[in-house]
């Protein structure tokens, strides 16, 4: 039976059965998302970035990162995440302080201080009409060295000449068993997110045709204790909490992403 099971899984995904750290479990220092106040801007626009960080075992500390900003080297087509290619790159530093009251009251999980980034005004020069319309990415890289490990994370800011710009998802409501979340959690409770505003946008396909697309909203789930059956869900789709909550407090985080760089974060301290 196991053989047949593996055979099928080889066909479609992979044979799991691992003891890896679970993606939905909050343990060490981790960047869960990077919020931009404007996911898309016109060339020359300025964006404030905030890292949504979790460090439940950090006991409150300041973690620093080296930053670099540059035109996307082509990460989507396989380039290494780096700014080494760009002589106009902007380097700097950034600090995350998890000892602030907001972090303390939310199991060391929250939004860090903002970082202001300005996209070059010339970013669309010499770009194809399709690239100018759909947008060119300007990436901001954060290189942390924490607990003896290097962590690299990055965020794209889309620069476009398209008139209507993307905004972050908003209005999301957390549900438990299809009812508004009541601040408590039990084993087998179903969690979902609804109410998120879904935008449409125009997109130039590679064959030159223009298409109106609806955003696809995805939700990433995290807990500081236990495990969820689906760490990622679609909007309205349920994930099940599969453990018994601890006697002490625990944290539930849901991060809502559109597929164009927009982010909304929600967190609940339970109970």
């Amino acid at each position, binding site marked *: 039976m196991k053989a047949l099971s593996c055979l099928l*899984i080889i066909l479609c*995904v992979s044979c799991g059965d691992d003891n890896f750290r679970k*993606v939905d479990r909050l343990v060490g220092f981790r960047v869960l998302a990077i919020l931009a106040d404007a996911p898309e801007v016109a060339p020359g626009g300025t964006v404030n970035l905030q890292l949504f960080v979790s460090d439940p075992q950090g006991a409150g500390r300041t973690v620093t990162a080296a930053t670099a900003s540059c035109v996307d080297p082509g990460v989507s087509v396989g380039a290494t995440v780096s700014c080494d290619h760009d002589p106009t790159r902007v380097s700097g530093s950034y600090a995350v302080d998890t000892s602030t009251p907001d972090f303390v009251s939310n199991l060391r999980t929250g939004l860090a201080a903002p970082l202001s980034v300005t996209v070059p005004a010339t970013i669309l020069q010499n770009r194809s009409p399709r690239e100018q319309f759909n947008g060119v990415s300007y990436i901001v890289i954060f290189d942390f060295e924490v607990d003896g490990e*290097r962590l690299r*994370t990055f965020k794209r800011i889309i620069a476009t000449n398209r008139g209507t710009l993307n905004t972050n998802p908003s209005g999301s409501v957390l549900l438990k068993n299809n009812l508004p979340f009541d601040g408590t959690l039990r084993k087998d409770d179903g969690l979902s997110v609804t109410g998120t505003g879904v935008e449409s946008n125009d997109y130039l396909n590679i*064959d030159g045709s223009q298409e109106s697309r609806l955003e696809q909203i995805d939700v990433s789930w995290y807990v500081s204790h236990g495990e969820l059956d*689906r760490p*990622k869900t679609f909007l309205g789709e349920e994930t099940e909490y599969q453990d018994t909550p601890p006697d002490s407090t625990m944290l539930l985080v849901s991060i809502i992403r559109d597929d164009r760089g927009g982010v909304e974060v929600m967190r609940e301290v339970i109970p």
Partner: protein
Amino acid sequence: MIYLLILLLSSGVYSQVTIPDGPAVGSIAPDPASVELISISGRLQEKGTRNPLSDVSLFILPHKLKATSDANGQFTFSAVPKGDACSLIVNLSGYLKYQETLPCQETRDRTIYLEKRFYTSFETTVTGKVVKRDDQAQSLTQDEFIKAPGSFGGDPVRAAQNLPGVGQNGGSAQIIVQGASPEDTGYLINGHRVPLVFHFGGLSSVITPEAVERVELLPSGYGPEYSRAIGGIIGLTTKEPRKDRIHGMAFIDLLNSGGLLEGPIDDKSSFLFAARYSYIGQVLKVVAAQNDDFQLSTAPSYYDLTGIYQRRLNEKNNFKTTFIASKDELKLILNRAASDDRELRGKFKNSTQFFRFIPQLTTQIDSRTRMDHSLGLGRDSLLVDIGGRYLDVNSNVISHRSELIKEWKPTSKTFLGLDNQLNSSDFRINLPSSYSVGGVGTPFSVGELRKFEDKETLIQLGVYLRQELKPSDESRWTFLPNLRFDHFSVNDNSILQPRFQLRYQLDPSLLLRASWGKYAQSPRPQEISDKYGNRDLRSPTAIHYTLGFSKDFRGGSSDGLEFTNNYFYKELDDVVNPDLKKNYLNSGTGTIIGGELQAKLRREEWTSQLVYTYLKGRLHTPGFGTRPSEYDQTHNLNLIGSYNSERWTYSARFRFVSGNPYTPVTGASFDSDNDVFIPTRGTIYSERFDPFNQLDIRIDRKFVYEKWILTAYLDIQNLLNSGNAQNVEYSYDYREKKKVRGLPILPTVGLKGEF
């Protein structure tokens, strides 16, 4: 004979017995005036198969009468003294002795079944039985592949993996020939290209084994008849339906079941129809119901159909047409995102299907001139849909082959041929761009989404000339100067491919051979696409050099040793590699060098074989340096043995293969927009998996009845349950990893009935 003598003496009729060797019918006739004479007639057939047995002596005792069966197995005793009882005796070498006491009465149409001592003479790989045009070719006939261990029920293509130069594919549906990429190997049925030879997972090829006459492997240095594959060629040839009577076969095992029917339609034509259906998915559906990671909405299934019609049009023309259809389908719902990639979840559908209609006309113009024409008409369809991201390709295919063979004189023979193919394809694509080097690629959700519909017509034209020249009738040398020309419309490339083969028959048992040749193939569709690829790509080419010999130590006997030794060297040029700016470039070069040997020893009921291949494959890509090729399996050893014991056949295969190289992941960057980690690749193919080893066994038991044969078999793959890592699985952030094992122990039991 002693028994016969005692029998005759004890009868009391004759005091002295001599059984004459003479004429067919009733050599000693009693006095007709005193005894009423009757006749006994019938037919002599092999038990189980009902094959007529000709030229066999039958005796009736105590009358000491002898008859001999004719070509149809018919026999007649025309003057047998009527009586209460007499004995009918047949004693034929290779068969169990037949003796029956029957009333000496007028009897017609009596059928006598002789039971063979051995119904299967298992030989895993035997070359030379088939008339080969290419000295480099390795062939397996149906009788050979149907009982091969590790072939999962006699699959011809899986059995071909026992041949020298064929690498282990880790349970995938790919064939690795002499270290070449599987995409560089062409798959043919009756000389016409098909998109795949295996169903899901590589367990079974797309055609019922019993409908296949032979499978042929052309690994390198082959003649000009084939091209568009810089690696090798795997060719399946369908059989000619039998004409003697209606034959049938049905089988059932854990994975699939099917049947075959063949026989004459009239005195000039015959047919064959075969079908298979796999229900492995029904089993997997039960498994999947217990797994939260995915739900099977449609159980994976496959089926294939084969139809063959043959008609002898007249003395000169023979017509044969083959129809093949294959479909694989899988639908599931991924509850958890695979590899934590948010795009790899939701509804997943994969469907692959194709059919080919292959009419062939052979015209024997005169005793020295033959003309063959064939067409391959069909359609290929591929659909992959992952949560609304899809690849949907439908191609109408027309391929054409014609060949004129002219033997000018015994020392000179010419082959002139055409080999053309047209693909008219519709594409519907909505997929992110992908970039993968060294087997490490960007996650699905990171790529830039590209959506388009397109139509494309690809034309591949080929013409070839093959010469077989001997300096004289007695000469041991044969020279084969060959030439092939191919044109690929997709990139407007025309390539002349000179090839040369040389044979030296030192003595009847020792053949020396060498070859050199150029081979070319068009870039793959995704590489040449103006949306995903690069229209300016050239056609990759390879130069093959081979050298080898075959020595047959058997001296005319069927027992003994056969030995084959080959060396090959391939130079690859214009290899297509991914490129960040142009999508793809002809930036690669490479070499594959190796040697292979095959030793086959047969001794009565024992057959054993040693197959070993050594190879070293290196590819060079600017920016990435020189590195092992993905299929650089340095050592590849197969030990195969079998033993026949009347109705039992035991066979086993042990395989040891160097581990495949792989590229380590040295880190990862978190893409906060797509919530996925992008792996950072280390030095390409700088690490290797542990060596692969696998023991397969197979036991067959035949139950022979008068008019049919039942075979039960047990086939166990990976009896030792060796781990055989084939892949590396990483945690979501690539900080943890583990090696994913290959196919665990996999037993199959099956039953096959045939008449």
